[in-house]
């Protein structure tokens, strides 16, 4: 981390930073850990997984479709994986 960006510390020129972050350093580190852990360079996987669960939840509001949702779930997940992989392949090609 850049020395001048550390909240509450004296800046390189000797003045105290007047605009320290209200978020403690350990909390930011904790948040950054989970961000990297769950999202990292593949936000589409996180968004895709949340979207799949959301779609399944909507379908399951009708009890008669709950078995159909079991067959749909792996297809949707496979679609998310495929999209992410081809996104990576496209990035490589460009």
């Amino acid at each position: 981390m850049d020395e001048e960006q550390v909240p509450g510390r004296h800046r390189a020129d000797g003045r105290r930073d007047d605009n320290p972050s209200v978020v403690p350093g350990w909390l930011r580190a904790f948040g950054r850990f989970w961000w990297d852990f769950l999202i990292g360079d593949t936000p589409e996987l996180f968004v895709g997984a949340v979207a799949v669960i959301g779609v399944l939840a909507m379908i399951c509001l009708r009890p008669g479709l709950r078995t159909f949702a079991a067959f749909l779930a792996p297809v949707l997940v496979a679609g998310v994986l495929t999209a992410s992989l081809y996104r990576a392949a496209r990035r490589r090609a460009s």
Partner: protein
Amino acid sequence: MVIAAATPTGSLVLVTAVFLASAVEMVEALTIVLAVGVTRGWKSAFEGVAVALLALAGLVVLFGPALVHYVPLSVLRLVVGGLLLVFGLQWLRKAVLRAAGLKAKHDEDAIFAEQVAELSEAPPASGRDATAFSVAFKGVFLEGLEVVVIVITLGTTSHRLGPAAAAAAAAAVVVLIVGLIVHRQLSGVPENAMKMGVGLMLVSFGTFWAAEGVHVNWPGTDLAIPVLVAFYGCIAWLLVASLRHHAAEVPTGLAASGDHLHG
């Protein structure tokens, strides 16, 4: 509703997933520890490993039972299923890219050489070697955190925290023994194949539990898990074949494009 992994089939898949995930991460940690031990001495390296293992075990003991006792099972399944789904998709994506030749494979020999070179540059220490301790600690703790998340999520949701933790510990022991025997030849471990297997199982468990959390009705209850593993295995095989064809047409390497994934 039958709890997933309450039957021998589910338990076997769960224990296998935890064992393989733990083994993969422990191979990566062992590479770092070996580099520390060879260059800086073994005493401080082992101290770093011991403290890291205690800290990881403490996390499992602290958070595992708490999740089981204080979080409703339906909520636990939904949240844990979602976590495992995301986590598993990341592992599977990386394994498919590597198998297709679109991402550089994990080279333990290169990582070992790089660690040795970095550690050799640090000044020698008298008494306890803080560099050796901290590098060994961080290597084991950071690699082990993924294992802890897998043990806690799989173990608590299936009410099999004990077997999940035992599988992780067994993998650590097996990797340690193999590591001591083969010493610096960890590159021979089929790491990508193991990651592919772990990814398939995590995605399968994740799909199963996240869907159960929103009241999906699985035919055959937990027998659906091995079916999901087989389905995702076929999908992964098709994707590897398709992307390998794509890689042959485009000659540049993904490894150099900054496509970073942890784990």
